[in-house]
């Protein structure tokens, strides 16, 4: 039995809604943007509700929704034709939420460390103002290449999502992440 026939057989065992999602997913794998539109229309509302139930923050849920669709795009080859799309999509959404929670924890710890560092030099100023003014941080930031510094500040100080940064700078989301990550790494090295 050929793989196409097997996919067809798999689709026949699914309920009609799931079978339709399967065919959209197949179209997406074939490179059709309309199939992505159909998947977005089918899942965006449900996924937003699901993400909102996890994070309890409407703005963050919107951000996570975009990131989930980016991750779906990056992981689309892991979808196995003929299998239900819904559990696959929800598993990715849950993982995006968990990754965000972990990185948020790391960011909070980083900002707390910076704030503690700046409190030691001047306890009266607020954390963000001190981050910007701290000599050590400024010196370290100067050592970071401009493109990485920009992504780092947009994400870690101004709180932009990587999708927003990518759209603003006209680069790919992965490139935005890489720049921010490398910038942070260089800054850490200079702060040591």
């Amino acid at each position: 039995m050929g793989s196409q026939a097997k996919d067809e057989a798999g689709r026949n065992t699914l309920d009609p809604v799931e079978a339709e999602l399967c065919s959209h997913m197949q179209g997406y794998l074939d490179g059709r943007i309309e199939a992505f539109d159909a998947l977005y229309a089918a899942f965006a509302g449900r996924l937003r509700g699901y993400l909102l139930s996890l994070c309890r923050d409407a703005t963050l849920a919107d951000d996570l929704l975009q990131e989930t669709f980016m991750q779906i795009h990056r992981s689309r080859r892991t979808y196995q034709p003929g299998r239900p799309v819904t559990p696959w999509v929800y598993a990715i959404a849950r993982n995006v939420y968990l990754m965000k929670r972990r990185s948020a924890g790391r960011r909070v710890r980083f900002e707390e460390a910076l704030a503690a560092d700046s409190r030691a030099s001047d306890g009266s100023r607020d954390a963000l103002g001190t981050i910007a003014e701290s000599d050590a941080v400024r010196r370290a930031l100067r050592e970071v290449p401009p493109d990485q510094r920009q992504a780092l500040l947009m994400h870690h100080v101004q709180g932009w999502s990587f999708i927003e940064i990518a759209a603003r700078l006209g680069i790919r989301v992965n490139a935005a992440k890489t720049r921010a990550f490398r910038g942070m790494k260089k800054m850490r090295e200079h702060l040591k």
Partner: protein
Amino acid sequence: MSAPKELRDAIERDLRPTRPLRSPWVRALVLAPLAVAIVLSVPGLRFFRSDMSAIGFLRAWGFSFGQAFAGLVIVAAALRESIPGRGLSRGAIAATVALGLAIPVALLGVTASAFDIGPAPGQALEEGIGCFRVSAISAIPALIAAAFLAARAFPMRPGLAGALYGLGCGLIADAGLRLFCEYTVPSHVLFGHGGAILAAMVFGAVVAKIIPRR
């Protein structure tokens, strides 16, 4: 509901026909030649156990390749675990780990004529370390290949997936080791053989956490 323009544009820029990954079982078969090479090379590059002819063809080669096959099945389970939405249930994970750890013990049970064959006095540690090292090093090529295969998916629980393929690769290496080492004393078997399988599990979990998911 339609996608925001910047998201849609980002997707459209990167959109091209994509071939889905093959099923976990088919991808695990990629490791089959490597598994055969490992089983053959562990004794082949050193020496075969002295009682090979006494234990017979089936209990020597048959059981070793059976154990290596079980290792491949566990690697396939790990590759399945790496696919979003196809994670293993707790029961399946427990059964897989229990099976993986029970197989070498069971094969030892049906192969050994007595459980008191061990290293010469004073050489227990050295021999134990020797078997541990041979087994652990032999597992590495399969483990790296399995890690690469798993990372091509998008594992939700990379540590778990890594521990599972580590277990599978540890079993494959141990399948070669049992053609090379004839000791049956529990202290040697638990440390030199079981310890190497557990080390492969831990190493797999660490590798899976380190390598980026694609």
